[in-house]
């Protein structure tokens, strides 16, 4: 009958009107993102500030958008002097993390980094050969993870 569809629609919206809302009240209620979420790049480092990076440049070569810049120590090819991330160019594809042979790169779930200044989007994970505050601290293990398929 003409009009039954109209009434049905009113019933549905009426039910929803008195029912609960489904909003996350964002700044008051913050969701924790799943651990797999790729937000900002970070690096594992030991508690005493030693980065686990071995400056193999795999991530830099795999990055489609030239986000990562690594400066090697001229004396020690396995030591990075600086590791710069230009997150303003990053597309969060995860190729660096995935291809890292030593499993050193990780993504953090911290997403609140809106800024007014584009320069602040460039941050260093290694500065002067030491891990910066943007790194994630891990307890040192005996065997470096992922050594086996380093040349995969």
């Amino acid at each position, binding site marked *: 009958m003409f009009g039954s569809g*109209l009434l049905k629609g009113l019933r*549905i919206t009426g039910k929803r009107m008195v029912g609960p809302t489904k909003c996350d009240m964002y700044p008051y209620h913050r969701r924790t993102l799943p651990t797999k979420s790729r937000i900002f790049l970070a690096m594992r480092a030991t508690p005493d500030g030693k980065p686990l990076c071995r400056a193999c440049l795999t991530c830099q070569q795999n990055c489609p958008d030239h986000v990562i810049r690594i400066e090697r120590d001229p004396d020690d090819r396995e030591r990075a002097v600086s590791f710069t991330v230009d997150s303003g160019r990053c597309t969060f594809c995860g190729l660096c993390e995935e291809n890292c042979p030593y499993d050193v790169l990780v993504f953090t779930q911290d997403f609140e980094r809106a800024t007014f200044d584009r320069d602040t989007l460039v941050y260093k994970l290694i500065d002067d050969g030491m891990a910066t505050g943007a790194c994630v601290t891990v307890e040192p293990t005996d065997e470096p993870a992922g050594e086996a398929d380093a040349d995969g």
Partner: protein
Amino acid sequence: MIGDYPRLGQASADGATKSIVLNMGPQHPSMHGVLHLMVELSGETVLACRPVIGYLHRGIEKLFENRTYNQCIVLCDRLDYISQYSNEWAFCRAVEKLADIEVAKRAEWLRTMYAELVRITSHLLWWSSVGLDMGAWTPLIYAMVPREHLFDFYEATTGSRLMPNYLRFGGVKEDVDPAALEELHDWLGTEFFAHLDEFDGLLSGNEIFLSRQRGLAHMTTDQAVAWGVTGPMLRATGCDRDLRKDTPYGVYDRLEWQTMTDARGDALARYTVRMREMRESANMAMQCIERMPAGEVRTRLPKVLRPPAGEVYVRTESTRGELGIYLVSDGSVKPYRLRVHSPAFMNISSLPRLVPGAHINDFFAIFGGVDNVMAEIDR
């Protein structure tokens, strides 16, 4: 009328017909993306329409030529950003066919499942905008509830809501937690269908909606094929052409499902086909979860892929229709030429043929049924 269609200014060239040209978009409240439509009107009747595209052109086909194959997958997400997995799959299929890579068993099931889920999320967005185009605001919000649930699933399993970069040559990036799959299966079987029933009650049976959609912008199968229209728009003319059935890939030949068609050929048929496809896709995704074998999800490949020189054209049934990937390789680490034949591009090119004679009022009702994504049209 299969061949030519009225061009802009043609009807008023004789001087007898008075017309105005409206510029709809690229900034218009209900324009989907940055499409610019020049519409010639006589009163409220559309005489001709000329879509102006390219506002979102990023030169992706050129960028492909400057990236290694692995890096190209990232860009595939950006083609049609609301059916990401379909794009990735199309590209991966082309590379796998050219380089003769075998896909891991479980990965095939996962790929099929994600492709069907993304068909649902894409159609949900379409459903919300179909209502919005006709002035109903509520569908927009209601469709977001199940869509957000699926996006949460994407994020928990692939790491990103919109740009997953999940498929790899020979498989997928990583396996999915069985508990998450189980939960998704339960949700699809119960809550999701309840949502769809609600959608049907809200819009599909609404007399105002029906009177606006019925008989609007009619298209026959012959016309659709001649204009290059594919996907749900073609199936809404009664033609059951569907690449998932015609050239089975993934595990589509092992699932029990039907191609959804509707013989009426009008805007309502396009609506019905997509609504039915959502239910069928949910069924297919549930079958995938039930029957998925255990095992590896990724074939071991050399870190740097060099497909042999040659060329391949692979067509995939994406959410919007036939997504063709034409890959020419010269044996190096980067594609020599990668052409993306976009279904939305073909469908939107039929718009100037569909709208003449319609009211400006119906214009967006027709436009909504085309279901375009500017990112894929402009590339």
